[in-house]
């Protein structure tokens, strides 16, 4: 009886545990193979306890706790991403709604989108004359494309039936935007937001390595200069963990706003 009840639990828990064990096993082998220049999981674990026991200490501008580093990075992502949403979502709406604008901006988007956002960093440094705004600028550039493109595609894919309703009722452009376009496009828009946040979180680490200051990316680079590999590995797990939480939160938001019965 007990056996039967526990089986689904173990089937749910064991595979991820095995996956994690496999990762740590390979890591341990690599550590042994490199004669300790990659620290062992055990050593790193001890270091992690030390790092996380005081995440919010401040000892000068270049030596702050991991908590501050993560928060500073998240703040840059939030500001850059927020500005991108402010510009990108309305831009996506008009590009999707008006064929002329779509034809006008599509070549520009196609040309600029494949460019690595880091290539824009020097321009940011030049224009804003500061490391922090330049990093935010880089985040802005990398998160604007998914939002423009997904919003525009969403607007173009609004079912013709709904647009016919709008035409028969002779709704004003504002009413069309608020009662038909916006709700119909919301799921597409949220996909764009998810992609944008994911990319922004990837890019912030690289951008901060180049700009310095306080941030998780700079922390990685700083610990590399200190040859503190244990902290680099801890940083990798922190970056992954934060990314996972962001992704999960946005998926939850997206499912709350999608209408399953749109087709029925």
């Amino acid at each position, binding site marked *: 009886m007990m056996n039967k009840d526990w089986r689904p639990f173990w089937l749910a828990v064991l595979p991820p545990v095995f996956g994690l064990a496999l990762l740590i096993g390979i890591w341990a082998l690599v550590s042994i193979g490199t004669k300790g220049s990659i620290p062992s999981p055990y050593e790193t674990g001890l270091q992690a306890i030390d790092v996380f026991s005081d995440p919010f200490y401040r000892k000068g501008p270049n030596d702050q706790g991991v908590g501050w580093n993560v928060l500073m990075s998240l703040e840059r992502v939030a500001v850059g991403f927020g500005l991108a949403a402010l510009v990108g979502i309305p831009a996506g709406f008009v590009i999707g709604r008006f064929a002329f604008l779509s034809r006008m901006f599509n070549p520009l988007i196609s040309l600029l989108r494949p460019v690595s956002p880091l290539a824009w960093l020097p321009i940011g440094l030049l224009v804003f004359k500061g490391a922090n705004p330049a990093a935010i600028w880089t985040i802005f550039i990398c998160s604007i494309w998914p939002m423009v493109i997904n919003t525009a595609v969403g607007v173009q894919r609004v079912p013709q*039936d*709904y647009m*016919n309703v709008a*035409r*028969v*009722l002779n709704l004003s452009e504002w009413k069309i935007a608020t*009662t038909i376009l916006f709700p119909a496009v919301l799921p597409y828009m949220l996909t764009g937001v998810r992609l944008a946040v994911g990319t922004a979180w990837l890019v912030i680490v690289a951008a901060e390595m180049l700009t310095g200051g306080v941030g998780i990316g700079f922390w990685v680079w700083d610990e590399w200069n200190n040859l503190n590999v244990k902290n680099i590995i801890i940083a990798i797990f922190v970056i992954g963990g934060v990314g996972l939480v962001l992704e999960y939160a946005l998926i939850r938001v997206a499912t709350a706003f999608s*209408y*399953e019965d749109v087709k029925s």
Partner: protein
Amino acid sequence: MNTDKFIQIQDVEQTFKTAKGLFPALRDIQLNIAKGEFVALIGHSGCGKSTLLNLIAGLTTPTHGVLLCANREIAGPGPDRAVVFQNHSLLPWLTCFDNVYLGIERVFGRTETKAQLRTRTDAALAMVSLSHAALKRPGEISGGMKQRVGIARALAMEPKVLLMDEPFGALDALTRARLQDELLEIVAKTQATVVMVTHDVDEAVLLSDKIVMMTNGPAATIGEVLAVDLPRPRSRIALADNAQYQQYRKAVIDFLYTRQGHVEKAA
């Protein structure tokens, strides 16, 4: 105004540009619809009956010819010609009440108070016996109920013309019969002019004053117009044994399957 020619369709031709070149959908359409008349457009699939309805709605413009409604050219869609769509086309993120309110607000919003608009919406939902579902979303109600909300939305705007594109096509036979009866009552009450696309012979004879039978496409046109001279109010049970009803029915079936049937086989 000449009430016999409330809607006039003159020399209308509709050609679509497709990937394979020009596709002639309709040619040489001449039709007059009187005020308060119930007209059914019937024909095989692809005969352009929905195309003709969209032209009257103003959702598309004809390649040639002219359509008039109340002596004014139909230049685009408008709330005076309400459409009940085949797939109901309710907005899934609005409640039934808000779906109906959307149209009412557009038509009466400038002249009436919010309270009056809400009263109209309640009345429209009551007319299709859906007051209890007012606060539900379309995803939470059955297909027949959705179609009734669609009808309520259209009628609540007090349109000059009600255009229906196979409104009951996707419903089961029992629901369809009930909605047809409801529609008969509503039309008798509101004296609305109705143009309905259908492929159901019984539906056409039961509801219409005039059945417009269309030839097979491409380049379809009106093959024959049958005036249905049955007294109203009509009851489907009484009509089942009515000899005149059977004659009308036979005339439509004869047109669809004897005279127009072979063309489809060849296609």
